């Protein structure tokens, strides 16, 4: 007990030391300040967090008529404190702002105690003083300035870089006094690459090929091989389905089935065929409006229509129709633009220069279809809601062959279809029946980039052009950052859905800009971007960490070691199925219903609709990739949800990576994992090799490397113990292997079989099994 308390106190002391007490002495504080205080990187984050709530862009909540987000206003005489100025460039002592943030008089100090925003730290106050001393220069928010490709930074360790990425990383590492790790061993590197590019572990053949290939091109060769496999498209699609809030049901109360999966098949197809990102976006935003639009182009717009849809009798149509438009606007702004605009639904944005009018002008682009708020209740439910795209069998055979259609019936998908009847108004406080003022013309967020009439039409085609204009400061940065996040576990901008003023600043701004510009210069080529990342020395580093690294950079922000993280939900399933040989590699098609604990859907349903009961699939459909698991919005698949999969309720660009006991229970008891252990054991039992070799092979299939001596010993001990137990009938071999629907094969040595299965199950429960290492 005492120990614990002491340790905790020490811990607290060290935390506070880091933040506060070392600044007790002014000299030290002075020294720790940056040479030049930047508005964008030092001052605005504090203003945005602590001041803009009352002194920012929102005109309705502005206190004392003071706004601090504009130089002119911040330099002007204060209206409520006569003779004073909030900021006097060059003169911090006389600036009212400095006086107030340094005060501890509750009636005078800022931020005011009623705001519950907390006070500024001595360091933050010192930053303000120095910034004002240096002239209090304002800058446009970094993310709203078009990215520029700067020359590569100078570095000392010139032998390390393999490509441009490494210059930027090494530069920061040298600045921070960190040394990059050596390259990871080949086995781990291959596992990392294979999981990152295809979401599947490498086969033994691929492992052997790579390990034995000592040519300088071996690495690149494997990268190309992985990039050209059809599983690449599935891996990339998984993230995009989160962005697009893809699901197989309508959400809301009765939550009946819908058919949006042909769009999901298109996404996989688009990634595999390496659609340039600008084309990929254009089709999804405005495919239906392209000249002589093909069915494929129209299908792509299902992206916008994946929103939930009510089938609750008695709803007010316009309330829901507006809700869908708000959702479409959010998906566009958060998923593609990387900014949050929904605040401006009810009032001018408090932190970003986005007016309420801007919000509804953006929404106006989407408010041009004949979509209804409600088409009928669950009793008359249809698999798609107007506007719909009809796809017949011939079309699937010919032009839409990427759709994995199982029958010959006509298929319908909810898509966009432009219609010019609707007018959009600003809605007071965001309420659907409170339109205000004149009808608004569609327009994109002006603070990001002007929507130039002369250049773009005021419709979704124009919006797509504006979005993919190379001068747009956000589109390329946001996407490159999302891809970076997929490979390194965290974006260069950590808040990948918020590049606005409340978002985090990029850790490597020049690298982000370089990558974004380079991406656009090379035709928005996604495979090229992926290849660039995995070929870098940065990516190839070993994940080993030392006390020093852990102390200097616990979050690995500066990347002095390789990325190590738990796999995303779908890929945990994929690893289990693939390593055991159960995986059915069919691409696309209707979503499937694998094993799920009994009663989940039944316990929560209204009893109406096709999805009131869970009808588990049979045969091959039990062994499809996680990407294809049926998503019923109101009760998402538990095996995915517990591993932090998006609930697909709204656009998501980033998943959390938690570590909970419920995850441990899944790995121990999910029939999928148990069945995989049994089937892999069953296959190995049919090989005429000694148990050690069987264990070794299973280990290689699951962990993707050979055991070390210690691991081998532990596993063999366990195996022999289990063998004993089964032999002495302390454990029931037959009952043990009796799991899962995959056909049982007659195995003579049932005891050996069961012991091997248990050993394999233990391997599946190793942390490394579901970790990219």
């Amino acid at each position, binding site marked *: 007990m005492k120990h614990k308390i002491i340790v905790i106190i020490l811990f607290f002391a060290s935390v506070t030391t880091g933040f506060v007490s070392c600044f007790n002495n002014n000299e030290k504080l002075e020294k720790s300040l940056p040479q030049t205080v930047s508005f964008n990187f030092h001052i605005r984050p504090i203003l945005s967090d602590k001041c803009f709530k009352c002194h920012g862009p929102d005109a309705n909540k502005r206190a004392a008529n003071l706004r601090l987000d504009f130089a002119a206003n911040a330099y002007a005489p204060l209206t409520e404190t006569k003779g004073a100025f909030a900021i006097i460039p060059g003169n911090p002592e006389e600036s009212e702002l400095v006086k107030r943030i340094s005060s501890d008089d509750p009636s005078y100090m800022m931020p005011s105690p009623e705001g519950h925003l907390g006070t500024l730290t001595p360091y933050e106050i010192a930053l303000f003083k120095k910034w004002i001393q240096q002239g209090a220069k304002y800058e446009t928010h970094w993310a709203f300035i078009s990215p520029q490709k700067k020359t590569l930074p100078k570095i000392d360790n010139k032998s390390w870089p393999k490509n441009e990425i490494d210059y930027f990383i090494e530069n920061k590492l040298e600045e921070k006094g960190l040394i990059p790790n050596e390259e990871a061993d080949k086995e781990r590197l291959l596992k990392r690459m294979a999981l990152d590019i295809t979401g599947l572990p490498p086969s033994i053949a691929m492992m052997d090929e790579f390990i034995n290939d000592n040519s300088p091109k071996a690495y690149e060769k494997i990268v190309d091989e992985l990039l050209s496999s059809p599983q690449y498209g599935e891996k990339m699609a998984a993230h995009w389905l989160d962005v697009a809030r893809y699901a197989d049901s309508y959400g809301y109360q009765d939550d009946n089935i819908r058919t949006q999966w042909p769009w999901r098949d298109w996404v996989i197809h688009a990634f595999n065929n390496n659609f340039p990102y600008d084309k990929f976006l254009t089709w999804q935003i405005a495919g239906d409006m392209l000249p002589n639009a093909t069915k494929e182009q129209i299908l792509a717009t299902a992206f916008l229509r994946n929103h939930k849809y009510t089938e609750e009798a008695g709803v007010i149509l316009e309330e829901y129709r507006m809700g869908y438009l708000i959702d479409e606007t959010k998906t566009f702004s958060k998923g593609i633009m990387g900014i949050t605009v929904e605040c401006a639904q009810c009032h001018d944005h408090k*932190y970003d220069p986005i007016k309420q009018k801007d919000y509804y002008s953006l929404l106006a682009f989407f408010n041009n279809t004949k979509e209804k708020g409600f088409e009928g209740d669950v009793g008359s439910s249809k698999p798609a809601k107007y506007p719909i795209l009809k796809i017949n069998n011939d079309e699937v055979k010919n032009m839409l062959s990427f759709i994995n259609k199982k029958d010959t019936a006509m298929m319908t998908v909810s898509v966009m279809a432009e219609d010019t009847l609707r007018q959009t108004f600003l809605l007071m406080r965001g309420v659907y029946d409170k339109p205000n003022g004149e009808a608004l013309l569609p327009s994109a967020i002006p603070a990001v980039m002007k929507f130039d009439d002369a250049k773009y039409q005021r419709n979704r085609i124009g919006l797509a052009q504006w979005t993919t204009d190379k001068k747009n400061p956000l589109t390329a940065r946001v996407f490159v950052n999302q891809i970076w996040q997929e490979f390194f576990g965290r974006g260069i901008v950590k808040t990948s859905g918020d590049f606005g003023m409340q978002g985090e600043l990029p850790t490597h701004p020049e690298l982000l800009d370089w990558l974004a510009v380079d991406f656009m210069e090379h035709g928005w080529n996604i495979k090229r971007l992926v290849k660039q990342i995995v070929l870098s020395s940065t990516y190839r580093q070993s994940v080993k960490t030392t006390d020093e690294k852990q102390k200097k950079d616990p979050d690995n922000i500066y990347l002095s070691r390789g990325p190590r993280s738990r796999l995303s939900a779908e890929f945990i399933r994929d690893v289990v199925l693939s390593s055991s040989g159960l995986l059915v590699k069919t691409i696309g098609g209707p979503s499937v219903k694998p094993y799920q604990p009994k009663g989940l859907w039944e316990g929560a349903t209204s009893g109406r609709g096709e999805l009131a009961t869970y009808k588990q699939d049979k045969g091959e459909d039990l062994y499809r990739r996680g990407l294809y698991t049926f998503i019923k919005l109101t009760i998402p698949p538990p095996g995915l949800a517990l591993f932090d999969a998006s609930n697909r309720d709204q656009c998501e660009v980033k998943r959390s990576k*938690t570590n909970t006991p419920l995850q441990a229970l899944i790995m121990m008891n999910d029939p999928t994992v148990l069945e995989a252990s049994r089937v892999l054991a069953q296959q190995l039992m049919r090989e005429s090799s000694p148990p050690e070799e069987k264990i070794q092979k299973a280990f290689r299939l699951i962990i993707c490397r050979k055991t070390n001596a210690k691991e081998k010993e532990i596993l063999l001990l366990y195996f022999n113990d289990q063998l004993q137990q089964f032999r002495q009938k302390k454990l029931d071999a037959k009952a043990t292997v009796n799991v899962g629907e995959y056909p049982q094969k007659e195995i003579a040595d049932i005891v050996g079989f069961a012991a091997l299965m248990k050993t394999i199950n233990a391997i599946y429960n190793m942390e490394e099994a579901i970790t990219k290492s």
Partner: protein
Amino acid sequence: MNKELLEQSLILNRRKFLSKLSLGIGSVALGSLLIPDLFTGKPDEEVLMAGLPHFAPKAKRIIYLFQNGAPSQLDLFDYKPKLQEMFGLDLPESIRMGQRLTGMTADQKKFPLAGSIFNFKQYGKTGAWFSELLPHIASVSDDLCIVKSLFTEAINHDPALTFFQTGAQVGNRPSMGSWLSYGLGSENKNLPAFCVLLSKGKGNGQGVYSKLWSNGFLDSIHQGVQFSSGDNPVLYLNNPESISKEDRRKMLDKVNELNEVAYEEFGDPEINTKIQQYEMAFRMQTAVPEITDMSKEPESIIKLYGPECLIPGTYAANCLLARKLSENGVRFVQLYHQGWDGHNNLPNEIKGQCQDVDQASAALITDLKQRGLLDETLVIWGGEFGRTNYCQGTLTKDNYGRDHHPRCFTIMMAGGGVKPGVYGETDDFGYNIIKDPVHVNDFHATVLNLMGINHEQLTYKHLGRRYRLTDVAGKVVNGIIA
């Protein structure tokens, strides 16, 4: 716990902790499932929860008996003889005032008033009115704080439920239980801080959705853990029959050894966290079945809750289970009982619903009281909105339906620092509130207050904004606090 292990725990927790620290005073809140395990031994957890609770709590735990689908306040609590007098007459426009209606009755030409066909009586010292449908609940009337003046903004089930559970209609926000798990953590290291129990009545039902117990943007350790009535009370809890507890222990020991080999090589603190999570999972495998096992409950308890409490998955069984979970330190137990959506045939349906819930609801209060737990446990009973005073569909002498009515409805609370009595008042038509209105945000602010939390200070910064359960509104209703 030995010193090394604790130090490791601290290191691995430091990252998360630091990022929370940067949010400012009052927002240091820690996890429920993860954290207690890292700090085995309870008092230490409190050391870490700097700033929370913000002041002395009146309640430590909550049991929320949610009546899903919206029970009719007019047939249960809000006695309106005027409606009986004016049975069949049209709702005066002076009362309705053009307020919006759902699409189900908006096109009705007439709005005939439907007085309840059930008899009402006053009970206890407070003289609160109850209909004959709730004799058991009426018998504990002196423990109840009856709020007759709740109102909400939503008029349909999905948004109204979501609003009640998360403080916003839009979805994707953390639910009440998640906020409390985040703010106060768990009192029990073997059980989740937030548990959810579902049951179904025979009345017209509306589904429940797991988003109602979602962690939203909080870490998923704050997600409500759904207990089910089947053999596996918690998802994937049970080992396959062929694997005994000792056998599981053996495997975990080996897996731990293997994970330690990896830790030695890589030094990644997540590996240690994983070891800890497996250990907690193992403890849950013992703790949860002990709690869900009703076989050791004495006859007096079975009698109190009624014989249905032995049938897993019933409301009565869930009430008893809720008491056991709460008694064992679960911060927030959320029940949902479906079937209250009486659009047609309400008198008949509501009888069945009341049979499901009356005895067990009252039993829970009595049971907590006799164990000395009612003082520190807040029990809440109510639905997502009210029902109309006029009939939906055809009105006959003994049958009617009622549409959704967000403008006033009744909820009850007991224990945990609430003041017994009746709060708020509606007009003679039971249509508008005439005294002490309580908005859903106010209700949330008050509940948090009872738990020792200032609702404006329990915040989480997400996508550039500090969110809270009460969003940008809510004021504590002091009139219902003892």
